[in-house]
């Protein structure tokens, strides 16, 4: 049978608590502010940008920030302020996309593995150990290279890399959940594994997985930026923060703003995700203050 999302969502009370938690502490408010700024930059890029982000102007190469070019220009005279704004779309999209791939696949596989137990669980988890044992970036490189150099493929590679981590957490949670009264009760109605997974395990995995996913968005952005650096991610002239940092580092001594300002954008956005993730995490664990 199919899951009905309206049936399985938690009530308004947990939602209100979530909102209070996310807006409750100073660090959470800062994090939320940073995220809102990043999202606004992405949404309003066409309005806020002062230049065409891809327009080349060889007469205005590597200019420092001034009244016309608020964040300076790069080695072909493109306006960095405008490129950072447009880059917010790419970089946020990458971060969320990569995490969505890893979290969805990892939660499903891990939830299933923990629920089934026995040799199925052992086989799945040993395979995940195998994936985790390989050096992450090398694996992503191999995957991205095999799929062909494109931003989508870089995102898939990074997403797959994240699956074992989500899988382990989801499996651990599922192992605990399957001993819960409501799962035992479902067995007594004659429920099969699919029903128990969809109705009882997955809805109760949402909160912990959301916390981890939020904390992971920053890493994902940086990971794809790394692939972009060696030509397997964002393809020129697409504005993407990671690619801009990597292009700018050649000029770090003569044009500090080129690598620094997009890097700052990555840092602040990743920080925003981490602060908000921490706040949501302390909701799931109300007794312990997270360091």
């Amino acid at each position: 049978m199919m899951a009905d999302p309206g049936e399985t969502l938690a009530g308004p009370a947990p939602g209100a608590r979530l909102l209070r938690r996310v807006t409750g502490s100073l660090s959470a408010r800062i994090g939320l502010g940073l995220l809102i700024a990043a999202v606004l930059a992405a949404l309003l890029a066409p309005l806020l940008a002062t230049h065409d982000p891809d327009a080349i102007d060889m007469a205005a190469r590597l200019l420092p920030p001034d009244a016309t070019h608020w964040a300076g220009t790069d080695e072909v005279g493109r306006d960095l302020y405008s490129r950072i704004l447009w880059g917010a779309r790419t970089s946020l999209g990458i971060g969320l996309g990569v995490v969505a791939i890893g979290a969805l696949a990892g939660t499903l596989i891990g939830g299933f593995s923990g629920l089934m137990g026995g040799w199925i669980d052992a086989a799945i988890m040993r395979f995940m150990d195998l994936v985790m044992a390989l050096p992450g970036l090398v694996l992503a490189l191999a995957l991205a290279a095999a799929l062909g150099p494109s931003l989508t493929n870089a995102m898939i590679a990074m997403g797959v890399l994240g699956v074992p981590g989500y899988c382990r957490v989801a499996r651990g949670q599922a192992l605990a959940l399957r001993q819960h009264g409501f799962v035992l009760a479902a067995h007594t109605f004659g429920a099969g594994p699919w029903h128990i997974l969809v109705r009882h395990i997955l809805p109760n995995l949402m909160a912990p997985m959301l916390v981890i996913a939020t904390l992971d968005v920053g890493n994902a952005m940086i990971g794809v930026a790394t692939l972009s650096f060696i030509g397997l991610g964002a393809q020129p002239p697409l504005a993407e923060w990671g690619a801009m940092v990597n292009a700018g580092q050649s000029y770090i001594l003569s044009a500090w703003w080129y690598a620094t300002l997009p890097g700052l954008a990555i840092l602040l956005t990743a920080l925003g995700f981490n602060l908000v993730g921490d706040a949501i995490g302390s909701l799931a664990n109300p007794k312990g203050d997270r360091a």
Partner: protein
Amino acid sequence: MVLHIDAAEVRYGTVRAVDGVSASLGRGETLGVLGESGCGKSTLAQAILRLVPLAGGAIRVRGFDVGSGRGAGERQYRRDVQMVFQDPQSSFNPAMRVADIIAEPLAVQGIGDRAERRERAIALAGAVGLPAARIDSFPHEFSGGQRQRIAIARALALEPALLVLDEPTSALDLSVQGQILNLLLELQRARGLSYVLISHNVAVVRHLADRVIVMYGGQVVEEGAAGEVLSAPRHPYTQALLSAVPEVDGPDFLEAIVAADELAAHPSGGCRYAARCPLAGPECARDQQLLALEDGGSWRVRCWRAAPGGSPE
């Protein structure tokens, strides 16, 4: 016969949590299973529901072999027997509303469409005295007694022949306990239900049960008509349970540990209660069978000192 248990055995590692328990139950009857924490009574309940595997013996629910039965009979078995759990709150998925909780067994068994299942859930809520207006609330918004009503409504959804009640009132206030017990009696009369009532509470068992088995260390130590066993117990352990009602009213973890230790220390030989028994003598180092107190009688005791015709005193 709705339920037939024949020398059922359940093991956790080397410990025999249920060791050679036999009992049977007819339509409309209640079998009380009395004992303290760790005596194996909840494990017996789980074995009836196939939540733990049988290591030996057999359990049959309306003829279906719980230990090894598969196929078409299994589907009917899942409808024939339902359980009411000790802690109703933890037996509900916190993300589900009451209407969906009550209707979940129907959904699992593919009975009716969404609208029909909801109607059934409302009717069941009415049958257990829940206000229909609150059917779309979450279980944590209800009191303990109302939660147990929700659990009972869910257990009735598939129109089972047998309900296994695992400490159905131990999580409730005293005043609410009576209401729930009376509701169970009413439902039994109206629907011809059979109950297996698992409890450490002598008063609860006395209130509901027709027959009773008293368990200690995984074994039945005394069995018979509830009225007889609970008014003039013959086994020293049953006597201790009855004389010490306040002591056994809550979970006594120390005793549970002692009981488990005794199990481990005496996996095969001798009376398992001997270490705690005030009447223990040299003969108690040998195994004793369940012996009828009189020829052909149904009142049976596993005690050297309570031999037929005799009395432990």
